[in-house]
């Protein structure tokens, strides 16, 4: 079996507890030569990269999800366990396990090392953040530690220049030598008694090889006195979230407008360059609009992940979860769900991608499920159009704008329904998993490493464009196809869309949508409106044969005011609070959960809520005389 090429590529795996600096080390070792994807069929992120050792060996390195043991309490930890044990069919069993430990916090890490020794694979302990440990006066006798544990030990400082030289040299030696398994696999899930015994053994090793720290980490303690303060801490968290929300919502806007108008201009250029016909429409409205619809999300995703990566590296994310735990916990959401849900007010797509900060699968699925209920910015054009056309510009008590009040009610309805859905999902549907306890290490504060953050941003952008982008693009082309085929017959009157498949579907849906007060024009506009919610406004304009232009929206408003009843308009608003009218969101849910099932569940529950809400609103409005 051992041909020359097989010796050429070694498979090493990084294992370690959360907050051991494992990912920073992975970034330092592989740089941009890494690929982030999902393990087949699960939401767990797979990070792999290639590392060239000084003497030219190439090592395939995989960064396994952080874990305190191999017991596999969550899908992430099951992946770590299965890869370490060589049970995962899609993954080559690692030749060497690099167990990464925070040198300032060895107790828990050494217990993991003792457990890993039973797996029977070659093992090396990497004492990461050794620079911080030395600065804090922690003296570690490496030879003694290695002898006591029976495992080679090497130090590293992932975020320092040259901090991985010693590690690379040892990896080089390992890659060149023989890497047969060191023994039989005798690992079994440890009992509580074995955990205690292993911890006692770890404590004994530490007593023998590690000098007690002269200076404890007083900086983190002092910062926490402010940041975890019941009043000041919450206030600062709100400020951080406010700035983040502003950034995703407002700072991204100019860039997004620039991208939109750039693609519009490109579309017009293509339109002018090509002969009129199907190809022209396909290039302009299918391909260019489709690509534009993918790229336009990038600014928000990059800004949001810049904040998330900085806060995570800084160590603040765990503190935010600490502060928000009770508030979110009431609705069955994890403290960390706060940031994804807040971001979803700008757009559900970065919000759903941001749920990666939640480790627990169940908490993450609940958050993904309710994120599209947050009133995203694409709903604003629909809301403002209908509100300005139907809600009078009056003031209650002289100062409360009725239009503003309706807008506020729509936002509130989104939030309340999100909390309700998560409560129901947790208590009735996701019960097969027990309630995960909230236990979280609050890591010492650290300055974020610019290079590591840059690599994180780069891999996010790449993953979005490659994976989510392709699905979004495919859906855009499909929607274009539905709205353009078949072509209207020669000399036909009325807009072309009225002869298309979209119109046929709209007509077919009409009897179903009649009870919620939707006429056939709305039914038809809902099909292209699947591309994005705001597209429905333009689609209504098309269906009502209104020429585009600056005043289009206003004209559509006038047209609607004369053609819809108030009950229909209110039903439409209620529909848009819930309706899964966004192909991109569905595509991202499909990608992030790795299953069509969760996309289908989200689509169906939102559709059901939309229908019920619109039905209720329409009929109550009709009874009250607004029909």
């Amino acid at each position, binding site marked *: 079996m051992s041909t020359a090429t097989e010796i050429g590529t070694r498979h090493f795996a990084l294992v370690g507890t959360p907050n051991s600096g494992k990912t920073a080390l992975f970034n330092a070792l592989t740089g941009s030569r890494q690929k982030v994807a999902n393990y087949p069929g699960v939401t767990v992120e797979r990070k792999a990269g290639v590392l060239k050792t000084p003497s030219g060996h190439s090592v395939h390195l995989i960064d396994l999800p952080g874990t*305190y043991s191999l017991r596999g309490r969550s899908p992430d930890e099951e992946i770590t366990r299965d890869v370490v044990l060589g049970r995962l069919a899609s993954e080559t069993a690692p030749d060497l396990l690099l167990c990464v430990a925070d040198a300032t916090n060895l*107790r828990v890490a050494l217990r993991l090392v003792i457990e890993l020794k039973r797996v029977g694979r070659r093992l090396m302990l990497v004492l990461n953040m050794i620079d911080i440990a030395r600065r804090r006066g922690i003296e570690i006798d490496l030879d003694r530690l290695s002898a006591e544990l029976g495992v080679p030990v090497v130090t590293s400082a992932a975020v320092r220049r040259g901090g991985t030289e010693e590690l690379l040299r040892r990896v080089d030696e390992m890659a060149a030598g023989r890497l047969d398994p060191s023994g039989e696999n005798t690992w079994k899930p440890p009992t509580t008694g074995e955990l205690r015994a292993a911890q*006692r053994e770890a404590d004994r090793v530490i007593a023998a090889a590690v000098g007690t720290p002269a200076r404890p980490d007083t900086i983190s303690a002092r910062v926490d006195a402010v940041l975890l303060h019941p009043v000041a801490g919450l206030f600062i968290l709100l400020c951080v979230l406010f700035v983040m929300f502003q950034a995703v919502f407002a700072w991204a806007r100019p860039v997004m407008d620039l991208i939109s108008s750039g693609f519009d201009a490109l579309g017009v250029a293509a339109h002018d360059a090509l002969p009129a016909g199907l190809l022209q429409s396909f290039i302009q409205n299918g391909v260019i609009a489709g690509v534009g619809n993918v790229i336009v999300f990038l600014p928000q995703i990059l800004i949001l992940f810049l904040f998330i990566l900085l806060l995570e590296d800084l160590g603040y994310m765990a503190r935010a979860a600490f502060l928000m*735990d009770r*508030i979110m916990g009431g609705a069955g959401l994890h403290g960390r769900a706060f940031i994804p849900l807040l971001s979803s007010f700008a757009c559900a797509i970065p919000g759903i991608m941001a749920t990666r900060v939640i480790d627990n699968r169940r908490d993450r699925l609940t958050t993904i499920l309710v994120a599209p209920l947050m009133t995203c910015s694409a709903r604003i054009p629909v809301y403002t159009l209908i509100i300005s056309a139907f809600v009078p510009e009056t003031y209650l008590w002289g100062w409360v704008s009725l239009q503003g009040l309706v807008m506020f009610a729509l936002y509130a309805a989104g939030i309340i329904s999100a909390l309700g859905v998560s409560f129901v999902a947790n208590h009735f549907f996701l019960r097969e998993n027990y309630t995960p*306890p909230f236990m979280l290490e609050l890591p010492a504060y650290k300055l974020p490493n610019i290079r590591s953050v840059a690599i994180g941003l780069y891999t996010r952008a790449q993953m979005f464009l490659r994976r989510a982008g392709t699905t979004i693009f495919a859906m855009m082309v499909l929607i274009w196809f539905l709205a353009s085929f078949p072509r209207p017959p020669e000399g036909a009157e009325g807009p072309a869309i009225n002869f298309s498949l979209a119109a046929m579907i709209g007509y077919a849906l009409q009897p179903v949508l009649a009870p919620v007060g939707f006429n056939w024009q709305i039914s038809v506009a809902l099909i292209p409106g699947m591309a994005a919610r705001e597209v429905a406004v333009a689609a209504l304009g098309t269906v009502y044969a209104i020429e585009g232009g600056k005043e289009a929206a206003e004209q559509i408003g006038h047209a609607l005011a004369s053609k819809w009843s108030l009950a229909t308009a209110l039903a439409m608003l209620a529909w848009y609070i819930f309706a899964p009218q966004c192909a991109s969101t569905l595509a991202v849910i499909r990608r992030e959960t790795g299953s069509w099932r969760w996309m289908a569940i989200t689509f169906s529950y939102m559709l059901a809520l939309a229908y019920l809400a619109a039905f209720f609103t329409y009929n109550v409005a009709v009874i009250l005389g607004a029909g």
Partner: protein
Amino acid sequence: MVDAAPLTVPCRPLGQANRGFCGRIHAIEVREGTHGSAAPEIESRLLELGFVEGAEIKVLHEGPIGRDPIAVRINDTTIALRRREAMAIMVTSLNRSA
């Protein structure tokens, strides 16, 4: 259940401790039926985070609502956990004033 000096070593759950409490872990006793997770699971998780008998702990912070969760210093790490889970950690006080 045989304690050398049960009367002189008052033992209470960490879940009831206030901010500033210093103590030593006496036992990890998860009572069945009081948690969403199975008792051995909670016990294992606590052990994996370093909550073992004999370890010294200090309650550093309390959450803003209902003083829950709590942040506990154990050796050189800080762990956040809910009071519900902390009820399983029996501690003896090391506070001079207490």
